[in-house]
C-alpha cells in the first residue's frame, strides 16, 4: 500500500475519475503498470522523504491576482537551462585555440556539423533572449513592489544573477574569435582597464597578462563555461528557495482583506 499521497489535481467534477465500485476488482495491465510506478516512487520517497520537499516547493499557495507576469522568472530560468544545454553540446566541438583553431571550429560547427548552425544559433540568440527576459523579470519585481520586506535579499541575489548574466554575455562574445569578437573584447578589456588605480590590474586579470595573449581566449572560455555557470546555478537555487520560502506577492492592485478582528462592526 503506497504511503505517498499527492494532492488531487483541481479538475472539474465531470473530469474526475469515478470512484471504484465495490465487488471483485479486476487488475488490468495498465493498473499493474501504475502500481509499479507508484511502488518505485514510494520506494525512493520512503528512503529520502523527497515528497515533502517537493510538495513544499511545487504546491504552494499563490495570492489572488497572480498573472502571466509572474512567469517571467521561470522564463528566464528556462532561457538559462537552454543556454546550458546548447552550450554543453557546442563545447563538444569548440576548441579555444587563439592561433586560428577557435574560428575554424566555429566555422566547422556552422558549416559541417549536422544541425550545428541551429544549435549555435539557439545559443547565440538565446543569450539575447535571456538578457531581455531577466530585465523584464526585474521590471516586474520592481513595479509590483515585490522587492520590499521580507524579499530584499532575493532582490540582491537577483542583481548578482543579472551581473553574472552580463559576465556570460561578455565572455561568450569572444569565443567565435572573429574580427568582431576580437575587437569587442579588446575594447571591453580596455574599458575595464581604464578605471583608476585598480583598473589596469583588472584588465590584466581579464587578459591574463599585459596584452591580449595566448591565454586570454582559454581564460574567457573557462570563465564562460565553468566558473560563472556554476555560480549562476547555485544562486538560482538560493533565489528559488527564497521564493518558495517567502511566497510571491500579490499584484499592487489587489487589496488585502483586513483581518476580521480589525473590522469594526457597523450598525
Amino acid at each position: 500500500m503506497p504511503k505517498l499521497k499527492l494532492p488531487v489535481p483541481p479538475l472539474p467534477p465531470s473530469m474526475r475519475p469515478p470512484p471504484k465500485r465495490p465487488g471483485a476488482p479486476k487488475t488490468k495491465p495498465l493498473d499493474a503498470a501504475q502500481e509499479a510506478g507508484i511502488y518505485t516512487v514510494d520506494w525512493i520517497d520512503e528512503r529520502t522523504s523527497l515528497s515533502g520537499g517537493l510538495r513544499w516547493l511545487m504546491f504552494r499557495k499563490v495570492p489572488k491576482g497572480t498573472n502571466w507576469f509572474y512567469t517571467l522568472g521561470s522564463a528566464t530560468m528556462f532561457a538559462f537551462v537552454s543556454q546550458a544545454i546548447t552550450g554543453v553540446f557546442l563545447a563538444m566541438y569548440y576548441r579555444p585555440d587563439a592561433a586560428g583553431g577557435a574560428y575554424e571550429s566555429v566555422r566547422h560547427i556552422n558549416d559541417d556539423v549536422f544541425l550545428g548552425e541551429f544549435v549555435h544559433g539557439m545559443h547565440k540568440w538565446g543569450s539575447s533572449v535571456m538578457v531581455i527576459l531577466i530585465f523584464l523579470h526585474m521590471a516586474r519585481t520592481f513595479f509590483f513592489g515585490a522587492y520590499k520586506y521580507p524579499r530584499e535579499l532575493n532582490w540582491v541575489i537577483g542583481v548578482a544573477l543579472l551581473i553574472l548574466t552580463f559576465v556570460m554575455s561578455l565572455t561568450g562574445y569572444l569565443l567565435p574569435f572573429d574580427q568582431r569578437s576580437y575587437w569587442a573584447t579588446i575594447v571591453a578589456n580596455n574599458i575595464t582597464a581604464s578605471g583608476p588605480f585598480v583598473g589596469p590590474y583588472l584588465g590584466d586579470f581579464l587578459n591574463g597578462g599585459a596584452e591580449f595573449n595566448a591565454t586570454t581566449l582559454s581564460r574567457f572560455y573557462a570563465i564562460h563555461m565553468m566558473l560563472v555557470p556554476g555560480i549562476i546555478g547555485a544562486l538560482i537555487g538560493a533565489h528559488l528557495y527564497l521564493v518558495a520560502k517567502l511566497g510571491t506577492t500579490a499584484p499592487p492592485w489587489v487589496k488585502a482583506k483586513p483581518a476580521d478582528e480589525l473590522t469594526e462592526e457597523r450598525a
Partner: protein
Amino acid sequence: MPKKQAKSKYTADRGIPGAFEGETVTRRRFMVGTAHATGAIATSAILLPSLGFALGPLFEQHKQRWQPVGAPDEFTNDNYIPKVITIADGIGEAGKTTVYIRRRNPKLDTDQLPKGFESEQFVAISTRCMHLGCPVRYTEAAQRFICPCHGGVYDFQGKVDGGPPVRPLDRFYNRVRNGQVEIGPRFSVNRELKRFSPRNPGEPLDGIGGILYPSRPTVRKLDKLPQD
C-alpha cells in the same frame, strides 16, 4: 599569601568531567581546534596554489625583444610605411600588430630623446587607439590617423586631433642593427611627447592622469631595455 587566582574556565574545580587540575583547554576543545586547523590547512593547500596559478600571469614580466622590419632607406620622413610585428607569441595572426614607421624629421620632431637613445632615427607609431584600443589607420590624403570604432583622429605626429582619445598614440623604441630597422618595446607619451612606461588605452598621462594611472610593476622598467 598570594592573591587568590581566578578560577580557570576548564579546571576540575569547576566540576567539568574529565578535566585535570589547572587544565586550561579541555580535550574536546582541543580536538575541535585541531579538526578546524586541519581543514583550514587542507583547503588552503588547494586554494592558494590555484589562485596563484590563475593570477600568476599578472605578475609575469612581459618579454621584450627587438624585431627587424626593413632596411633604413625604405623609410622617408614625410610618409608612414606600415610594418607588422608580433606582440604576443603562439596565437598567430591575433598576436600581430601594425606599426607605422617614418624617419625622424628634425623640424617636426623636437621632443627630447632619452639617454642612450640620442641616435634614434625613426618614429614608430603604434596603431592601438588610445581611446579603447581599436586599430587606427593612417590616411595619407588627410595626413591623419583615424580610428574606425569611435571616431578618434590623430595628426601626423600621432597627437590627438579630435574625438575621445585621451593621449597621443603609443610609440616603439627603435634602432638600426645589421642594416635593419629594429622595433623594440612600446612606450606611451603625453601631450608633449614625453616618454612614459607603457599604459593601457584610456589612461591619460596629462594632469591628474599620471597620478590616477601609475605604471604597473610588471612593465615599469623602461630603462632596462633588452640588448639583443
